[in-house]
C-alpha cells in the first residue's frame, strides 16, 4: 500500500512536469496548428540558462528561474518570427520539417556552449519530508505546487483577461480575431512566449532532481506529444489531464508491469487510442 502511495506521488511529480511541457505545446498547436518539435529543445535550453545564471552570476535559484523563463520565452518568440511566421501559408510537412531543423540546431548549439557533460543544478530546497512513510522532498513539493499554480494562473489568464481571451479567440477564428482589432502577430508571439516560459519552467523545476544535459528534452517532448494527442490537440484541460494520466500510468506501470517497459507504456497507450479514435479522445467530431 505504501508503495502505491509513494508511486502515486512520484506520478504526480513527473505528471506535473509533463503537463507543463504539454501545455505549451498544445497552446501553440491550438493557435497556429504547428506541432512544434523544437519545444523539447526549448525545455533543455531553459534548464541550461537557469543553471548558467545560478553558477556564473550566483543568483538565487528562484531568481534564476525567473530570468531563464523570460529568456526562453524570448527565444521562442524569435523562433516564431524567424521561422514559423514566414511559413504561415505553407504545408504541414514544411512546418514539421522546419521545427525539426530548429530542434537539431538548438541541441547542437547547447552542446557547443555548455559542453556535452552532465551539469548538476543545486537547489536550496533539498530537504526531505517524511509523512508516514511517504517520502516527499521539498523540491518535488515545489514542482507539484508550482505546476498547479502555473496551470491555474494560465487558466485564469486565458479565461479572465482580455489578452488571454485573444489567444483563445485566435485559436477559434483567425480572421475573426483580425476583425475585432486583434493584432494577430502579437498574439502569435505572445503564445510562443508563454509556451517557451512553460517549457523553461518545467525544465528548471525538474533539473535539480536529475541533471542537465543536451539531450534531456528528447523523451519529454515525445511524451508531451503523446499527451496532447491523448488530450486532444489544442485542448488546455486535455493537456493537463493527459500529463497526469501519463505520469501516473508510468509510475504505476513501472511498479506493476515492468520498469523496463515503462516508457513503452505511454507510447502504446497512444497507439491504442489512435487506433480506436484516429482523431484523439477529446477531439470533437468532424475534420
Amino acid at each position, binding site marked *: 500500500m505504501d508503495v502505491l502511495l509513494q508511486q502515486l506521488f512520484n506520478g504526480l511529480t513527473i505528471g506535473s512536469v509533463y503537463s507543463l511541457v504539454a501545455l505549451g505545446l498544445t497552446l501553440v498547436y491550438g493557435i497556429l496548428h504547428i506541432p512544434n518539435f523544437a519545444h523539447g529543445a526549448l525545455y533543455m535550453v531553459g534548464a541550461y540558462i537557469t543553471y548558467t545564471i545560478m553558477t556564473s552570476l550566483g543568483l538565487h535559484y528562484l531568481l534564476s528561474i525567473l530570468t531563464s523563463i523570460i529568456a526562453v520565452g524570448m527565444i521562442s518568440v524569435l523562433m516564431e518570427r524567424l521561422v514559423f511566421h514566414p511559413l504561415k501559408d505553407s504545408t504541414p510537412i514544411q512546418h514539421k520539417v522546419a521545427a525539426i531543423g530548429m530542434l537539431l540546431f538548438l541541441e547542437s548549439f547547447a552542446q557547443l556552449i555548455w559542453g556535452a557533460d552532465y551539469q548538476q543544478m543545486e537547489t536550496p530546497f533539498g530537504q526531505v519530508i517524511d509523512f508516514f512513510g511517504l517520502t516527499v522532498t521539498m523540491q518535488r513539493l515545489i514542482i507539484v505546487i508550482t505546476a498547479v499554480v502555473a496551470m491555474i494562473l494560465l487558466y485564469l489568464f486565458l479565461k479572465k483577461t482580455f489578452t488571454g481571451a485573444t489567444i483563445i479567440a485566435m485559436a477559434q477564428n483567425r480572421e*475573426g480575431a483580425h476583425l*475585432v482589432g486583434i493584432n494577430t502577430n502579437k498574439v502569435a508571439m505572445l503564445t510562443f512566449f508563454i509556451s517557451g516560459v512553460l517549457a523553461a519552467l518545467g525544465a528548471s523545476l525538474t533539473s535539480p532532481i536529475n541533471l542537465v544535459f543536451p539531450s534531456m528534452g528528447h523523451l519529454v517532448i515525445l511524451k508531451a506529444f503523446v499527451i496532447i494527442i491523448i488530450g486532444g490537440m489544442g485542448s488546455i484541460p486535455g493537456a493537463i489531464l493527459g500529463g497526469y494520466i501519463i505520469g501516473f500510468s508510468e509510475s504505476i506501470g513501472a511498479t506493476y508491469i515492468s520498469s523496463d517497459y515503462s516508457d513503452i507504456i505511454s507510447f502504446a497507450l497512444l497507439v491504442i487510442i489512435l487506433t480506436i479514435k484516429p482523431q484523439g479522445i477529446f477531439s470533437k467530431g468532424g475534420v
Partner: protein
Amino acid sequence: MLDLKNVSVKYGNFTAIKDINIRVDKGEIVVLLGANGAGKSTTFRTISGLKTPFKGNVLLEDDLIDNKPPDKIVKQGIVQCAEDRKLFPEMSVQENMMMGAYIHRKKKNKIKQTLKEVYKLFPVLYEKRKNPAGSLSGGQQQMLAIGRALMSKPKLMLLDEPSIGLAPLIVEQMFESIKQINKEGTTILLAEQNAHAALSIADKGYVYENGNIVVEGSSKELFANEEVRKAYIGA
C-alpha cells in the same frame, strides 16, 4: 469619410476588382450591389486591411489606410461584419461580444454600457448570452456578428450580406436595426443581394459587375435605372 481611389486587388494572377472608386460620407448608408463573385467582399476585405490593394489608395478621413494591418484599422473605427460571420464558435455569446470590444478593453464601464445597448437591440442574444456561439441558429449568429461589430463602437461599419440565410421576418428586423444603428451615428457600408430592401434604406449605391463598378448613384437613381431594376430588383 471613406474614399477608395482607383483601387485594384488581385488574388494571385486574378484581378478581383479593377480601378474602383467609392466614396462614403459621414452618416450615410451606402450599398454595394452585384452578383456573386462581383467583388463586393473583396472590397470589404481591402478596406479592413485583410487584403492589400495592388493599386490605388484607401483613405479614411484623409488618412491613408491601405497599408495598415487590420487591427490598426479597427482602432481607427472601421469594423467589418464579414460574410461568413467569423465568430468564435466555442466562446459564449457574451464572450464573443466582449471580444468585439477588444479595442476598448481598458474601459470596463463603457463596455458594460455598450453591451446593454446591444442586448437591447437584439434581445435574443441576451437570452442566449451563456451559450456557445456555434450553437446558435444562422440568424442568431448573424445578429451576434453584427452585435459583436457594434461593441467596438465603430465610426464606419462594413456589413457584408447581413441578410444571408435569414428568414424574411428577421431580414426585415435586420434592416430596421441597421437603420437604427445608422441613426445613432454610425456610417454604414452595406453589401447586399437583396437589392430592394437594401436600396430602401440606403442613401446611395454602387453596382458591381466582374470587379468593375458599372453604375453608381443615389438610391432613387438606382431604383429608376432600368438595367439595375432588371438585373437586381426584378420586374
